[in-house]
């Protein structure tokens, strides 16, 4: 099921995976089978939601994952927290391979690995009080708290800026922003090391978004948290992330520190994505050069061969449809998967092409 050319990426060791790497993802894949037939199900294809992604998350940093809907960013987040079983690849958390660890063995790890969900309306049980919801992790993990669970929950409520007296209220009594705070309090209960936040603010109003973004930053400082923030809003990600990965159709196409990515994007897709963001300044309406992408994202059921973006790319040449560009570090801290990168030093594209050829050769011999 795995295409040989995408194996290339998996062979590359992510850069900067020194001792400070908290999470390492190598060649991660998730293929959802598409079956046909009522009684005897046979597989007729696979949705390649995530198809060979690798990155490292360092201790204390925030990694942002951006991309359009269907690019596989949520699936990646769910695999990291093991809410989905990866089809292939490796997830290494604190030096331990957790790719296929069983549910029972995963449970103690969940203390360190938590998730914040997108929709604060559907991620809280409407029939449980806030106290029960936030206290659940203590009960599940069997943790004894010094002054009882109630006190611990009330402390948490205070940490996220809610009134501790609201302990006995139900989720429907809270607004969207407050519910998201409840979700964050629940995540914090176990004092995790890594939090995967899947679109933590996209369901909230602008004025509330800023409150939650600030809260996430404060908590990171206070509890030394590491975040993987998944979002489609490029400006929110720029604000909170130290490093940003851009995904397109199940592949990571660019991975760089925030400043590098936003100031000199290299992959044509990143360039297009950034230029599509509306700028809240009417004076800049005119004279802005825009890259307009044509058409829609192709179906992940049958993605284009080699570079996934070549069908919509204005720089695409013949090689883009035949040789898949691997994610290569072209300047320190800036990795891109493109044969003809923008804003890149001389020879960066050749570097990518060469890496692709080398990988292709080793593949044939092996």
């Amino acid at each position: 099921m795995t295409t040989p050319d995408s194996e290339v990426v998996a062979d590359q060791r992510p850069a900067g995976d020194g001792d400070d790497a908290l999470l390492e993802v190598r060649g991660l894949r998730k293929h959802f089978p598409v079956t046909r037939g009522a009684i005897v199900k046979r597989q007729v294809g696979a949705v390649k939601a995530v198809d060979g992604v690798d990155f490292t998350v360092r201790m204390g940093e925030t990694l942002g994952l951006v991309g359009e809907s269907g690019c596989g960013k949520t699936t990646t987040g769910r695999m990291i927290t093991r809410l989905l079983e990866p089809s292939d690849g490796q997830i290494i958390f604190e030096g331990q391979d957790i790719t296929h660890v069983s549910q029972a063995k995963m449970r103690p790890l969940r203390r360190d690995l938590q998730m914040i969900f997108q929709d604060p309306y559907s991620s809280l049980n409407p029939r449980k009080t806030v106290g029960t919801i936030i206290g659940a992790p203590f009960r599940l993990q069997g943790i004894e708290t010094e002054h009882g669970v109630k006190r611990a929950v009330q402390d948490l409520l205070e940490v996220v800026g809610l009134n501790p007296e609201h302990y006995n209220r139900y989720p429907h009594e809270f607004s969207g922003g407050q519910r998201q705070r409840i979700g964050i309090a629940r995540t914090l209960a176990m004092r995790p090391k890594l939090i995967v936040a899947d679109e933590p603010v996209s369901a909230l109003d602008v004025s509330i978004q800023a409150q939650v973004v600030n809260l996430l930053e404060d908590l990171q400082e206070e509890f030394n948290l590491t975040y993987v923030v998944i979002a489609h809003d490029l400006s929110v990600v720029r604000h909170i992330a130290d490093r940003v990965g851009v995904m397109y159709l199940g592949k990571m196409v660019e991975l760089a520190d925030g400043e590098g990515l936003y100031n000199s994007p290299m992959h044509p897709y990143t360039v297009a994505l950034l230029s599509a963001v509306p700028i809240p300044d009417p004076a800049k309406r005119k004279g802005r050069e825009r890259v307009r992408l044509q058409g829609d994202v192709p179906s992940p059921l049958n993605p284009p061969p080699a570079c996934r973006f070549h069908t919509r790319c204005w720089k695409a040449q013949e090689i883009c449809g035949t040789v898949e560009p691997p994610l290569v570090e072209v300047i320190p801290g800036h990795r891109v998967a493109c044969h003809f990168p923008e804003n890149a030093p001389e020879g960066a594209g050749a570097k990518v092409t060469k890496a692709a050829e080398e990988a292709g050769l080793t593949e044939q011999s092996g």
Partner: protein
Amino acid sequence: MTQDQTAEPVADPAPRAFLDVRDLRIHFPTDDGLVKSVDGLSFTLERGRTLGIVGESGSGKSVTSLGLLGLHNRRNAKVSGEIWVDGQEVVGSSPEQVRRMRGRKMSMIFQDPLSSMHPLYTIGAQIIEAYRIHNNVSKDVARKHAIDMLGRVGIPQPDRRVDDYPHQFSGGMRQRAMIAMALSCDPELLIADEPTTALDVTVQAQILDLIRDLQEEFDSAVIMITHDLGVVAELSDDILVMYGGRCVEYGSAEDVFHRPEHPYTWGLLGSMPRLDRDRSERLIPIKGSPPSLINVPVGCAFSPRCAYAELNDGRSETERPELREIAPGHRVACHLGREDRHRIWTEEIRPRL
């Protein structure tokens, strides 16, 4: 708030503007109390211009748009005020009269194209139906028109896609089909209620371009309702900021973005991370959350969240500020004095944005 907004008194029967909304109030009596979704809103709009209505959820912006089209539920909504579209009044008209205007004079692009199209009819059938209600033409002519419209909004192979069902279209294409349907009868007033909220940025850019091009082509008046300040900045000539069912600031796009006068507008600008500025260390959120429309705070609705409310000697909590013209075409509803507002904006707010 209305009397000083329009030059003519409310009773004047002959409005000069193409769209003239005067003291529009839409209230919903419920078991919990009266929900004042829109409470005294007035504005005008000429053809060929775009008005952006900005506000958070529950500020009454969508209810306004439904009221303009007469789409509110007549059994439980209490509507008062006047809406003049091209010399014709909407609020006092019978449902039959409004129905005849809807589609032809004014039409709407909804937020979620999947739930606002009928899943069991083809895209073509839905456009043809709308066209044939307002134009006495044969099915074949209407079909040709539908194909033509789909082509105009950039759907590839429109002669084949016209027979597809909504679920066979992608999100961006559905929104295009929705726009084709809304424009099929050359409406003079187009209301777009969060037209791109459900879409990805690259598709959003395509749709915004499309709306802009089509507006030039048809010379229609466009009302753009959104919570995204970036989208309004891209498209709007004028901007109306709503809070708690009322207009708190109205002005040209340049005024609202470069010389905003209301603390709520400052808050919106401060809470938004921006790609066109250097990365700020911290966002400046507005404290608290939007008010419930059943219990709108007495006095200025924004006062509980306003950082400058105490500068007004308690008037913020007791007296509702009227919308006053502070510069030609720029109106603000705030108790703060002119000098105070200027000082706060130039000294405290602008440097931090």
